[in-house]
């Protein structure tokens, strides 16, 4: 079963080709996405999440083309950006409930986890008043609250405290065993302490799978 499939993917930013001829077939499992600074790890995740236009090629999430069937494809993925830019006027609860409503899942999903990772009162704080770490936790909770088959995480360990990291580690391990695909962009895969099934290395505009 292939959960993430790309064919001849090319991504350009600022007139420069960052990724070219990227063809991937990811079955369920935990994958580390590695590469030098600026190699294109975040760009690959952004393209797979559908938040960045691609110059060429196709992306399919759990069998659904990301651009032809965007609703079906995006319902099946969760994405944590490296630096989440969220509207500061919403509260954490409003953001989670809106995202859950769009995805058609329980509106309260994720609230308990966010309250545990930060504190219950933070749910009703405006995002603009949260610290950078708390905003990242919120974006992470929003990415996993609908329990998607495909999860794309850009440096999830950054700014997470030990308790949240332990919680996330347990969750990802369970999800891997359940048959989901989790791609984690990181410079130090071993530091995550996750049972990896594969490694994607971005180098010279290509992606090598090992």
């Amino acid at each position, binding site marked *: 079963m292939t959960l993430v499939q790309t064919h001849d993917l090319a991504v*350009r*930013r*600022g*007139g420069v080709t960052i990724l070219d001829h990227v063809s991937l077939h990811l079955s369920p499992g935990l994958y580390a996405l590695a590469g030098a600074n600026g190699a294109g790890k975040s760009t690959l995740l952004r393209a797979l*999440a*559908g*938040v*960045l*236009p691609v110059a060429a090629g196709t992306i399919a999430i*759990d069998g659904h083309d990301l*651009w032809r069937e*965007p*609703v*079906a*494809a*995006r*319902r*099946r*993925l*969760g*994405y944590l*950006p490296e630096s*989440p*830019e*969220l*509207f500061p*006027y*919403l509260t954490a609860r409003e953001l989670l409930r*809106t*995202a859950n*409503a*769009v*995805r*058609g*899942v*329980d509106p309260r*999903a994720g609230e308990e986890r966010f309250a545990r990772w930060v*504190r219950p009162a933070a749910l009703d704080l405006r995002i603009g008043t949260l*610290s950078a*770490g*708390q905003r990242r936790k919120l*974006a992470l909770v929003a*990415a996993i609250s*609908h*329990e*998607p*088959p495909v999860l794309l995480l850009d440096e999830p360990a950054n700014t997470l*405290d030990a308790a949240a990291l332990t919680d996330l580690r347990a969750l990802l391990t*369970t999800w891997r065993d*359940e*048959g*989901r695909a989790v791609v984690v962009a990181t410079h130090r895969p071993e530091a995550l302490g996750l049972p990896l099934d594969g490694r994607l290395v971005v180098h010279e505009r290509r992606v090598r799978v090992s």
Partner: protein
Amino acid sequence: MARLPTQLQPRPQAPRVLGGALGRRLSTLVLRDALQTYGVGMSLALLPLVYLYREWPPWEIRDALHGLPPSSRALLMAAAHALYGVATAPVVRQLLASERLRWWWALPLSARWWRALHLRHLVLLDAPWLLAIAYGVLPLAATAGPVHTIASGLAFAMLTLFGQIAMVSVSDRPPRWALLGLLTWALAVAAAVLVPGLVGAGLGALLLAVMVRRLGQPMPEVGARVRGRTGGPPVVALARLGWLAARRHDGMALVWGAATQLAAITLAGLAIAHVGHEDPEAAAALRRGLAVVCATIGAALVLRAVRILHGDRPVLDTWGIEAHHERSARLLLAAVGGLPALFVGSIALAGLGPVGQTWPLDLLLATAWAATHTVRLTFSLDARRRLHEPQLLRQLLWMAAALILTEVAGTPLALLPWAAFEAWRMPATQRRADHARRRFEAAVRDDHRS
């Protein structure tokens, strides 16, 4: 989705209703963001229009346009659309491609939903422009009939939307692409003037259809490669940092600021030319008032730069910046904001006789006041954690006070004691800002640990 045992099951829902509610919520957020970023600039840019309305009412402009030969009309219409495109480009970019909007692209929303949202935002932004187009084509009904009139109006409206989307869709490409987009837009508008209305509407519909299709995907990020000089003495380096931040993050606000100064000089110059010989005292009063207005608009540059750099404040604080260097850099930046008025005013007002020749001195004195006042304001707002709150009304009130003081005293020299008082208070206000920032950041760190 049912393959995975612990996954939450999708609940039945009415997508249209949810889409409508979400659309309204997202629209509110996006428009609020745009207003917060560009509201002050837009207000300042629109102020001279009030005076323009008195000098050249819309019906006179419309009659003059319809009285021109088609080729001249085509040229003017193309230039007007291109100018409008350049002036609205940053707001359009914010509406279609802000980074805060990008996060929402990861949610399961259809391409049609995104297209409708973007088009709604563009139509809201362009509403006055579209009304002006409707008003402009109305006289055609008498000569060419209602079908031609409606088709012409639709052609210009569709070409406006096409041009705006096209400019954003090439924003990650080298500048020549944006120029090409602008030229295509202007040429299409010129063609729409010259061809029959239905053909123009067909052209507009074709071009707009291509761009509306493009709205179903996220817009590209802005091109990152730019060049700029850096370094120099600490004060110059810090002032340049603020300048680069304002120019690159909010370039159109700078253009608007300069354009407002130039428009004010043009209008005041016209008025001085009218009354200069008959009433030199009234002309001198106009010149002094103009200096205060231009200095206030110019000094607003420092407030904008400080706001943009605020996110990097923790990093800047680790550089060990001397307090007096920071004050001097902000004063320098505030003074730089008045340069367009200095250059253009010196040339434009010099030809108006003795009354225009003291313009540089008036502007210098007004800038001394505006710079010290605005720089102290930046520290004061930082100290009260209110740096990002809109300050337009407050600035206008202070400007009015300075205008009254100048006119009562009959010279902008009266502003110097005020400027000296601001300069005297500035170090203490800066210390309060530094103290408040350290306290706030410590609180955030403690909060994060908990």
